[in-house]
C-alpha cells in the first residue's frame, strides 16, 4: 500500500542526505521524495510517498524521528490530505496532430508551455490518478520525455473540521 509521509526538518545542508540515505540503508522503497522550504525559512518539508505495510511505515516513522534534524513526522491517513505533483511532458507533435493534443490538454487542464515543429510540452499539476489518465491519452502520440517533481501534500482542513 502507498503511504504519504510529511516530514519537517531543519533547513541545514546535509539533512536531505541523512533522510534519503535512511531509506536505502534500511531497505525501504520510496516512490517519490519532494523537498522545499516552508513558511519558516529555517524549516523544510520533505514529502515522501512510500510503499509498504503497516510494519514498514511504523519503522520508517520511528527511524525518521531518530534523525536529529528531523522535527516532526506525520503519516497522512487516506482522505485527510490533498496531494499534487507537477510534471512536464514532452510529446511528439507534428503539425497535423497539434489540434488533437491541444484538445487533450484542454480537457485535462494541462498547460501548453512550449511548442516546436515536432513537439509540444505540457505542464500538468494534479493527482497521481489524473496523471495516469493523461499518460494514457498522450501515449499513442509518443512521449519523448517526462520530468516529475514528486508528490507534495498538505492536510485538508475541511476534513479535519468535520470530525
Amino acid at each position, binding site marked *: 500500500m502507498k503511504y504519504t509521509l510529511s516530514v519537517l526538518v531543519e533547513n541545514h545542508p*546535509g539533512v536531505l542526505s541523512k533522510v534519503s540515505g535512511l531509506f536505502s540503508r534500511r531497505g525501504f522503497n520510496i516512490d517519490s521524495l519532494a523537498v522545499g522550504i516552508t513558511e519558516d525559512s529555517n524549516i523544510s518539508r520533505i514529502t515522501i510517498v512510500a510503499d509498504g505495510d503497516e510494519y514498514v511505515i511504523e*519503522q520508517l516513522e*520511528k527511524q525518521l524521528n*531518530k*534523525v*536529529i*534534524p528531523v*522535527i*516532526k513526522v506525520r503519516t497522512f491517513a487516506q482522505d485527510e490530505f490533498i496531494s499534487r505533483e507537477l510534471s512536464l511532458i514532452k510529446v511528439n507533435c507534428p503539425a497535423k496532430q497539434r489540434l488533437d493534443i491541444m484538445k487533450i490538454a484542454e480537457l485535462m487542464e494541462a498547460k501548453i508551455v512550449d511548442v516546436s515543429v515536432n513537439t509540444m510540452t505540457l505542464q500538468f499539476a494534479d493527482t497521481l490518478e489524473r496523471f495516469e489518465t493523461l499518460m494514457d491519452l498522450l501515449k499513442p502520440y509518443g512521449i519523448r520525455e517526462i520530468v516529475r517533481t514528486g508528490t507534495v501534500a498538505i492536510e485538508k482542513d475541511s476534513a479535519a473540521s468535520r470530525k
Partner: protein
Amino acid sequence: MVSGAEIMVKCLQEEGVEIVFGYPGAVICPFFDKLYDTDIKAVLVRQEQNAAHAASGYARALSRVGVCVATSGPGALNMITGIATAYMDSIPMVAITGQVKSDQLGRDVFQEADITGACESFVKHSYLVKDTADLPRVFKEAFHIASTGRPGPVLIDVPVDVQQGEIKEFVYPEKVNIIGYKPSVSGHPMQIKRALDILSTSERPVIVAGGGVLTSGAKLVFREFVSKTSIPVISTMMGIGAMPSDDPLYVGMIGSHGVKAANKVIHDSDLIIVCGARVGDRAVASPDQVTKQTTVIHIDIDPAEIGKNMKTNIPIVGDIKNVLSQMGRDVQYAAPEEWLEQVRQWKTDLAVPPKSFEGFVEPKSFIAKLSGMLGPKSILVADVGQNQIWCANNYRLSDGRFFTSGGMGTMGYSVPAAIGAKFARPDRDVVAVCGDGSFQMMMNELATIAQNGLNVKIIVMRNTVLGMVHELQDVFYNSRYAVTELDEMPDFGKLAQAYGIDAAFASSNEEAESYAEKMLASDKSSLLVCNVHPNTPSR
C-alpha cells in the same frame, strides 16, 4: 582573538574531558598543538580504530563520553569500524576528525575523505563544521546528543582552516536547543499500569536484561525490582552484569551461544519483560515463534527498537531506571513457586559439563576460576569469537563489569577497550581476554600499554584456529576448514617480552590458574597464553 583549535580544546575542558585517544596527522595538528598546553591527556594509540575502541572502554567504565581524535582521510577511515562498533552498542562517544581546507572540499585532494558521508549510518549525528564561530555550539550539541537518550557516537569533522580561523572571544553555550531532539525519559503512567495489570495474571514471567539496564545506570533499581517480584532473569550479551551471576533468579545469557536453560525459559514463558534490549537475531533467532504464545512488555528509551524485531503488546518508551523505579513502587506481585521450581530444574538439567583435553587449558572452567581471583569491581573485556562466549557464559560477576563488542562483533576490541577502561579506572583489575585471531588484529597496542606503563592483564586463548568460524565449519561445512587455520603462529610470549611485558604459557588449568594469580598480584601488565584445543566448543 581565539583560534578554532583553541576553541575545540576549551570546549573539551568545558565538558570535563580529561583524556582523548588519538593519532595525529597534518590537518588535526592545530588541535593537538593547543591540547599540548593543557592538562587533558592525549594517548597515542597505534592505529585509529583502537582510538575509538579505547574511548569506548573508557566511556563504559565511567559512564561518561569517550573522546577519540584522528586526522583526515585514512585516519578518519580507520576509525570508522571503531565508531560503528560504538554505535551498535550505544556507547556515548565524540569522534573528532581533521579535514582538508574547506575551500578544497570535494576536490579529492591529498588525504581527503568524505567522512561525515561515510559515517552517516554509524553515528547518532555528525557535523562538518564550516565556520569557526559554530564550534562552541557544535561541541555543546555533540556532547549532549552523545550522552542523552539512547547514547551513541557523534562525529565532528573540522577542516584545518576552521581550526586556524579566529573569532573575537570564546563563549560556551549554557544550553542546547535542538528542536527535533527531545528524548522522553519517563515512561507513560498508563502503559506502566497496563504492564503491571498483565504481570499480575502471569504464571510464567521472565525478564530479559539488555545493555540498556547498565547504560542507564539502573543496576540497583533493576535488582530491587527482581528481588521484590522474584521473576527469573535472563540476559543478552550486553546485559551481562545487570544481575549477579550467582543470584538464584539469574538463569544466564540467551541466544544461539547462550545457556540452554535461558532459551528454554524464554520459549516456555507466558510473559516477557524486555528491559533495554534490541532482541537481536543472535539473542532470539525466531522472535515470531516466541511471541505466538507469550505477551511482550518492551521497555526501551529508543522507540524505534520497540516492535522492530519482536512483536510487542505493551511498549513503554522511557529510561529503564525511571520506568523500573515507577514499576517497582507500584508492583504487588511474586512469581509462582512452581514456575521458579521449573526454572531451577532446567538450570541444573540443561547445564553442559565442560569438555577437557589433555595438555590443554579448558577455557570455561578457567574463566570461572579467574572470576574468583579478581577484585569485586573488576572489568573483564572479552574480544570476539569463542573467547567471547567462554567469557560471557562463565565470567562470574556481581559488581564487576563485562565489556565486549556485542552488536557489531568487532575482532580486536578487547585490548584497546581495556586500555581505555584502565585509564578510566586505574584502581581496578582490568583483564582483556582474546583469541589468537583477535590478538593479531590489535597486538600493536602492546606499544601503547608499554608507553603508558599501564597495568592491563591480557589472556590469549591460543587454539591455532579462528575458533568461531572453525566450529561453524564443523557444523555447516562438513569440517572443511577454509581459511581458518592459523599455522606458523608467532610466540606471543616473546612478542610481549619485546615490549617489556611479562608473559607465560599454560597448557593446563593448574598452570593457567597459578600464573593468573601471579599476574594479578603484580602491578604491571602481563600476558598469559593459554593453549586451548581447537575442538573446544563455544558452549
